[in-house]
């Protein structure tokens, strides 16, 4: 893709993001304007609305970026940030915190979720490494699937018998994903991780391009695939785990955003990665605005909206791939 064209896409997506954020701030149970002088409205704006809208943008950006990296790493456009069991690990972590009644302390549920997510990926990585000596993609994906089932069983058990039942509503909301708990600390937490992880993955974007030709060919081009995979998996896992910790498991953003944008800007990861982050931010900001307003003052879990959008699209993708005879 030509340089001016990339700049055009980047700047129009940035403009869209600014627009989406402005819209997100204005919309809600209480309509707001940044110039509102009313003290109550100002408080709603600075303490509730603003952190929430920014968190939506950051989480959306983080998930889409991670999705793009995972798709490149696994050479598969159907990969997403939750491929290695991070979502079910995080959910089990959150359920365990609630079951142990630790949720009365501030910040323990997100912490439990973060640790659960990281633990899940760490186990998957170890299992795949020891069982197959040489770590390969299938081993990782299969261990991810198996571990996701295991952690889901743990969550269900805790939910029904293990004492997480007293706060089942909270847990369910968390499973479906949502930004109801948004606060400034979360905003800065995700922002910091996104900046650091984002810089790391951008630095390796060109290696991901070479990886599209397969691990052997990438190696012949001077890249060390194992090294690359380790670095990128650490970056993606930490970023996804932070996002999941503050927002629950919001599905499909990390899957469809990179996919759509790849159709528009092409597969070059040096452009695809930043563009995906921007696109994910736009999408989730808008979805969250819908979640807050459509049943206002009640709120729809964000995961329902992204899944309503994402699942049909996912099926469309599968169907299209089946038609052109491509393998998954």
């Amino acid at each position, binding site marked *: 893709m030509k340089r001016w064209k990339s700049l055009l896409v980047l700047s129009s997506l940035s403009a869209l993001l600014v627009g989406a954020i402005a819209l997100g701030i204005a919309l809600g149970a209480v309509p707001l304007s940044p110039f509102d002088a009313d003290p109550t409205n100002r408080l709603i704006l600075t303490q509730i609305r603003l952190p929430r809208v920014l968190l939506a943008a950051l989480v959306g950006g983080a998930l889409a970026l991670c999705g793009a990296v995972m798709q490149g790493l696994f050479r598969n456009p159907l990969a997403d940030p939750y491929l290695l069991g991070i979502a079910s690990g995080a959910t089990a972590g959150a359920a365990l915190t609630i079951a142990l009644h630790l949720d009365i302390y501030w910040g323990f549920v997100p912490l439990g979720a973060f640790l659960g997510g990281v633990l899940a990926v760490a186990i998957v990585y170890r299992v795949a490494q020891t069982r197959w000596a040489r770590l390969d993609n299938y081993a990782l994906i299969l261990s991810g699937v198996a571990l996701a089932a295991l952690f889901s069983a743990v969550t269900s058990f805790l939910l029904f018998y293990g004492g997480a039942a007293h706060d089942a509503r909270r847990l369910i909301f968390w499973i479906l994903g949502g930004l109801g708990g948004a606060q400034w600390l979360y905003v800065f937490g995700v922002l910091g991780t996104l900046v650091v992880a984002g810089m790391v993955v951008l630095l390796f974007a060109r290696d991901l*391009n070479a990886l599209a030709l397969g691990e052997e060919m990438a190696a012949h081009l001077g890249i060390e695939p194992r090294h690359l995979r380790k670095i990128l998996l650490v970056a993606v896992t930490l970023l996804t785990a932070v996002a999941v910790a503050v927002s629950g498991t919001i599905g499909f953003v990390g899957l469809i955003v990179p996919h759509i944008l790849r159709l528009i800007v092409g597969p070059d990861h040096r452009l695809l990665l930043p563009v995906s982050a921007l696109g994910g931010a736009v999408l989730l900001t808008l979805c969250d605005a819908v979640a807050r307003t459509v049943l206002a003052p009640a709120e729809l879990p964000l995961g329902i909206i992204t899944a309503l959008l994402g699942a049909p699209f996912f099926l469309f993708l599968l169907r299209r791939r089946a038609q052109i005879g491509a393998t998954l």
Partner: protein
Amino acid sequence: MIRLERVRLGYDGRLVLRDLELEIAPGEVFGLVGPNGSGKTTLLRAISGRLSPHAGAIYLDLRRLSELSSRELARELAMLEQEISCSFDFTVREIVELGRLPHRARWQRLSRQDHEIVTRALWLTDTLPFADRSIQRLSSGERQRVWLALALAQEPKVLLLDEPTAHLDFNYQIEIMELVCSLAQEQNLTVLVSLHDLNWALHYTDRVALLSEGRVIALGEPERVLTEKLIEQVFRVRVRIVDGTGERYIVPLFGDLSPNPSPKVGGGFPLPVPGRGPGG
């Protein structure tokens, strides 16, 4: 120049290369032939630096291969795997530009000189006309030429090709081999190519090594190595070498498997894992 000194390599306790010795001169088109499983691909991967020998050493010019980083190696040596697939919809030019990766630091953009090298590689392989087309919309013959362009963009001294004519139609096979040979001559490339079809080896290589069970059992000019007797011994199939239009052709006698068992050149299976066994 590539030199292999008593290279021993294997997987899962099975030796694939057994004390293999070989020396390949600069500018040479060197063929590797032998039955499936005789070690051709393993040998190429060892020279590419992807597999390291359990024992022995491989030298590129005067340096030991293991002393070079994978990036340094990618500047000296390009390898095309037998089957290359591209998982995303890159354009031909984007693919060939990947050949410049080992020459550029991670944060560097491609320079004007890089772009010139890429265009030249496209031109040499006659892929320039479809440089902006998607790789996934090309025929397999065209795609094979793109992989060659990628390798040339690396500006290597040595080109390793693993069965470049496999899965290609006849016309494309000839096209690729002609191209490789002319490139070797014009660019003074050392080409090491594994071939399953002995006729290609007979026509296009300067020297060939006949591999069997991980050893070189014959080495030299193709006419002297690829004899009826030796082919029958190693491949267990009867062939005739016939003359036609001033060229020689190897013709298999269909359905006539040789009754002789293949010669056990390397001794019995299984061999001990190197480093643990008595010979390691």
